[in-house]
């Protein structure tokens, strides 16, 4: 018997270079690093807020460091990318069937984008940006 199936191992640490779609996937996943780090920043902010006005002002000043600005800029890109991938996925996780037909995926995603915009503008208004 001469069967000798050839098993081709998947390179466990570099597999995502095999195809652009894997890189796209990994970049989506990596946004979590920025989100996580940004959350830590928020926790620190909360601490400052709870420690009185001076501490809060110090926190706001600390935000102005170039490193912080660069980080927040990247975090903004990452979270927007996360949001887009998340909303695009909603149609898959929660398809909507009316009668025989399914509501077109881009309508579901589109609705999420609209809601996102409305909420964001709302937050901006509450925060007194306008």
């Amino acid at each position, binding site marked *: 018997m001469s069967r000798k*199936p*050839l*098993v081709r191992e*998947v390179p466990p640490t570099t*597999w995502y270079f095999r195809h652009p779609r894997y890189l796209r996937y990994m970049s989506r*996943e990596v946004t979590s690093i920025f989100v996580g780090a940004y959350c830590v920043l928020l926790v620190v902010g909360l601490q400052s807020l709870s420690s009185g006005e001076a501490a809060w002002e110090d926190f706001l000043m600390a935000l102005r460091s170039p490193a912080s600005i660069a980080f927040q800029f990247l975090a903004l890109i990452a979270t927007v990318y996360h949001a887009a991938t998340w909303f695009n996925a909603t149609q898959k996780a929660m398809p909507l069937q009316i009668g025989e037909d399914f509501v077109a995926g881009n309508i579901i995603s589109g609705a999420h984008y609209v809601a996102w915009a409305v909420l964001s503008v709302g937050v901006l208004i509450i925060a007194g940006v306008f």
Partner: protein
Amino acid sequence: MSNSLPRSQPPLAAPNGGAVASLGRPGGNNERLVQLEVLRYNPDTDTEAHFQHYEVMCQEEWVVLDALNKIKADIDPTLNYRWSCHMAVCGSCGMMINGEPKLSCHAFLRSYEGVIRVEPLTHFPVERDLVTAPDDFMEKLKRVKPYLIPKETKAVSEGEYKQTPAQLMKFRQYSMCINCMLCYAACPEYGLTPSFIGPAALTLAHRYNIDSRDGGRKERQEVVATHEGVWECTFVGACSEVCPAHVDPASALQQMKITSSIDWIVEHLIPGGKS
């Protein structure tokens, strides 16, 4: 060509020319020399795989499978691969074409330039040349109980289970899987964790779960809701991108994660929920 109602007279197509003639270049020269680089492996003679280069004259509208068939008939009878239907429905002819899992009978030469690289589907052991061993998939398919477990039994003589077109449409898409395994070749999580039951098998479980006639979801959950089941999926989405039958396994798996989570909550957090 116009979209209007055709009449049987006047002529649909002018005898010499007109729209139909654009279809025809009788005896026309639409041949093209195609170069392929095909992975070869023969356990009888090789310890490793290697690429073999072929050049073959092909028609413009041919698919990669046609090129392989011509190679096998005219150049090299020792090249091995599977195929049957040549119409993207039997699911035999999956291979990696320029790194992408494809049905070779549905990979049009016109969409490739330069040397076309043809390899066996990744993530499966190679039996020989482009022939892989699908045993793992076949075993997993069986495990998810992909058959109707009726909600209420009914004798055939009592007629059909009623099912409205809307109830049918709910699962129809997921019943279209041709078991070609392209999604397994595309899913990196399957590659990294081979015990993962994988997109197609899980999707078929979902297909029966959401069939209005079926009552077997609970049984299937014993397999679906395990670590090797839906929870191994990180929603890469590659499965749906490569699926030639537009099954969209990624969506099925996402929906199964949601229902499995709800199940868990009912079982663990709601008193008396563990029925």
